[in-house]
């Protein structure tokens, strides 16, 4: 690495790469070469910056200029103007949607102001394919410290003291989990990293592996040291090709430096990591199912106990942690448990990464201290609801979670508060919904997902969720009754109580929480056969207002099923029995004569 005067960081996360960030990198490098600046300007492809809404992101240092929505053809101008002439390219800077001010430094953006980045500390900062950059930022120092200065028990005590809880959704204290695995004697033990991120809308684990793979490798080695394991396995879904590639590069580099392998840092401790690819089954995020899948068996959960800490992979003591949990470990060791446990709320320490998605202005990846309120996340960081619509609910915890409504906006988000509010942390997906979203359809969407993903082992989950889905379908088609609502609630409770694993125990949550928070909406579906959000097609009717219709015939000419009748210059009529509710007529009408009822 040379010492450069300026660094250009380009987001190399999956999202920005899909928007041609590689071409931007190439064009920037070409332009730099053309100007003979190769020795002065360094171009680095980093991990995700988190601000996916405005990607691809290009950040120029040292003046910290944050360019958004950059296109490959902008590269030359960036070099010519910013690098050579020192003038910012105004049209590529971020404009605050609220006050229309142009912001050049990301530090002043609402999106970044409230964030504290621990798990994402290196994402968007280092080149994930260069171990030197990781080492320059204290990489592997925590492993070194553990091996040279701490006993396995003091490491475990430090993690326990930090209050770190599993970030995969369960929220189990990590230090305690490590201690269980450490106490079980065996000739072989395993450390497993759960990178089977399955919640729709959550992508923090992928981003960490893409942006900072070494942090996970380092933490796995630390975990191995505490429990006496010399093998680590990363279980990752095959549909994360970029994360897999970067992990492979990272493992190779760590081996070359001797940071993985035998006699790490001269301590006599051996540890190596390999990878297993999952086919992307949601249930394989459950640790026993994950272990079975790793063994080449069907991805089905089994009864705990025995816990993996006693009998896991190949029947040996195994500790399974999620990617984000691991990413926190090196920081806790380096900065100390007492630094870490000052951040966050009383029972949930540290930060949590959330993936903001849905009807929100700033879609992206954020990391905030536990205890931040939903309002801060949605309105200050997320920039509020798209198109100025009204906030309706936010689904946390994916298909296992529930929805939170306006009354929860000021609840501090942590593991326990979310459960008290009828939802859960899950892996940190947050899907924001506005007034145009129908909550019955939303519950139906998640049930569709669980029906698909249920492994089929337990009857309540296999059959029960199917029945729940049928009931919801019936309601959205306008055939539901009040009795169906009671049935929904009863069945949900039974499924929760009688399923073996987390999938079945939580799959009815979207139904229960929408019934709890949006009972009126269910009632209007079953009694009045109306869907206020206008999403349930069967309950909608397109109607032409005879007062406004001038008889231009545009609608009837565009109707794909010819269900609109009427003479020229006379009001038209829609035949509701034939209408397929495609909305083409309403879109075409120039006189706003067609409405939904």
């Amino acid at each position, binding site marked *: 690495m040379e010492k450069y005067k300026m660094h250009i960081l380009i987001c190399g996360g999956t999202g920005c790469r899909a928007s041609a960030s590689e071409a931007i990198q190439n064009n920037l490098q070409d332009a730099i070469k053309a100007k003979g600046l190769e020795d002065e300007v360094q171009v680095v492809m980093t991990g995700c910056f988190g601000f996916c809404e405005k990607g691809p992101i290009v950040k120029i240092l040292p003046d910290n200029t944050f360019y958004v929505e950059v296109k490959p053809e902008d590269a030359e101008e960036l070099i010519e103007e910013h690098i050579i002439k020192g003038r910012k390219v105004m049209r590529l800077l971020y404009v605050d949607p609220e006050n229309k001010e142009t912001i*050049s430094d990301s530090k002043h953006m609402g999106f970044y102001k409230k964030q504290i980045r621990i798990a994402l500390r290196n994402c968007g900062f280092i080149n994930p394919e260069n171990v030197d950059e990781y080492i320059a930022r204290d990489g592997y*120092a925590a492993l070194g410290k553990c091996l040279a200065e701490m006993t396995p028990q003091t490491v475990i005590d430090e993690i326990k003291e930090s209050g770190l809880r599993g970030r995969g959704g369960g929220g189990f204290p990590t230090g305690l989990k490590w201690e269980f695995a450490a106490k079980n004697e065996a000739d072989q033990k395993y450390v497993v990293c759960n990178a089977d991120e399955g919640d729709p809308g959550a992508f923090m684990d992928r981003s960490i592996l893409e942006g900072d793979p070494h942090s996970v490798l380092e933490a796995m080695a630390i975990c191995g040291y505490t429990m006496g394991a010399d093998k680590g396995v990363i279980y990752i879904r095959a549909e994360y090709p970029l994360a897999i590639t970067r992990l492979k590069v990272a493992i190779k580099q760590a081996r070359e430096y001797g940071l993985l392998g035998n006699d790490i840092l001269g301590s006599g401790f051996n540890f190596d990591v390999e990878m297993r690819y999952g086919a992307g089954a949601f249930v394989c995020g459950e640790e026993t199912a994950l272990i079975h899948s790793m063994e080449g068996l069907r991805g089905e959960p089994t009864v705990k106990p025995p816990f993996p800490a006693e009998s896991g992979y190949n029947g040996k003591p195994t500790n399974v942690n999620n990617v984000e949990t691991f990413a926190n470990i090196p920081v806790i060791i380096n900065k100390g448990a007492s630094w870490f446990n000052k951040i966050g709320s009383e029972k949930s320490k540290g930060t949590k990464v959330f993936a903001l998605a849905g009807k929100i202005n700033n879609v992206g990846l954020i990391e905030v201290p536990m205890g931040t309120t939903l309002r801060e996340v949605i309105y200050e960081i997320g920039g509020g609801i798209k198109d100025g619509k009204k906030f309706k609910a936010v689904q946390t915890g994916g298909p296992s979670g529930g929805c939170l409504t306006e009354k929860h906006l000021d609840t501090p988000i942590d593991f326990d508060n979310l459960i008290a509010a009828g939802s859960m942390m899950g892996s940190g997906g947050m899907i924001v919904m506005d007034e145009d979203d129908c909550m019955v359809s939303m519950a139906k969407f998640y049930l569709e997902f669980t029906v698909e993903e249920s492994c089929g082992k337990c009857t309540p989950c296999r059959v029960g969720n199917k029945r729940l889905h049928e009931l919801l379908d019936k309601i959205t088609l306008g055939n539901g009754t009040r009795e169906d609502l009671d049935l929904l609630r009863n069945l949900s409770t039974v499924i929760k109580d009688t399923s073996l694993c987390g999938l079945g125990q939580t799959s009815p949550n979207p139904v229960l929480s929408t019934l709890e928070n949006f009972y009126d909406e269910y009632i209007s579906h079953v009694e009045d056969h109306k869907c206020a959000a206008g999403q349930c097609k069967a309950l909608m009717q397109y109607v032409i207002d005879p007062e406004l219709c001038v008889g231009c015939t545009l609608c009837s000419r565009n109707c794909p099923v010819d269900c609109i009748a009427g003479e020229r210059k006379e009001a038209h009529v829609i035949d509701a029995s034939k209408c397929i509710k495609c909305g083409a007529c309403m879109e075409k009408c120039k006189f706003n004569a067609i409405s939904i009822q």
Partner: protein
Amino acid sequence: MAKVKSLADLKRMKEELQSKMDLREKSNDPEGLVQIKVAMATCGIASGAKEVMEFLIEETAKRGIRTVVTQTGCMGYCYAEPTIEVQIPGKEPIVFGDVDIKKADQIVEKYIKNGELVDGIIPVNYKTLD
């Protein structure tokens, strides 16, 4: 690649590698550092701004002052090139004109180190973007 054989080895490596990442670390917290902007338009460069900038980058590092040195466009004071803007944390930015290497040295020694003003200050008449 050579193996990293001990914790001391790793620490040594970190020390060496750190300086190459320094620029990125500093830009993480520019408010806490002395920020120097050198006007590097045609007129500035013709009057020697490039040499001044290199001097500032190298000398502040040598003298152990944590600074971020960036280039900027024409500040409009063509009669007083090279011009530089210096902002010490918590203070208003000050623009100095006719900065040659000797003047740059004075600015580092007197203003940045001790807060003493030196000749050649130009009143600021522009606003900087956040």
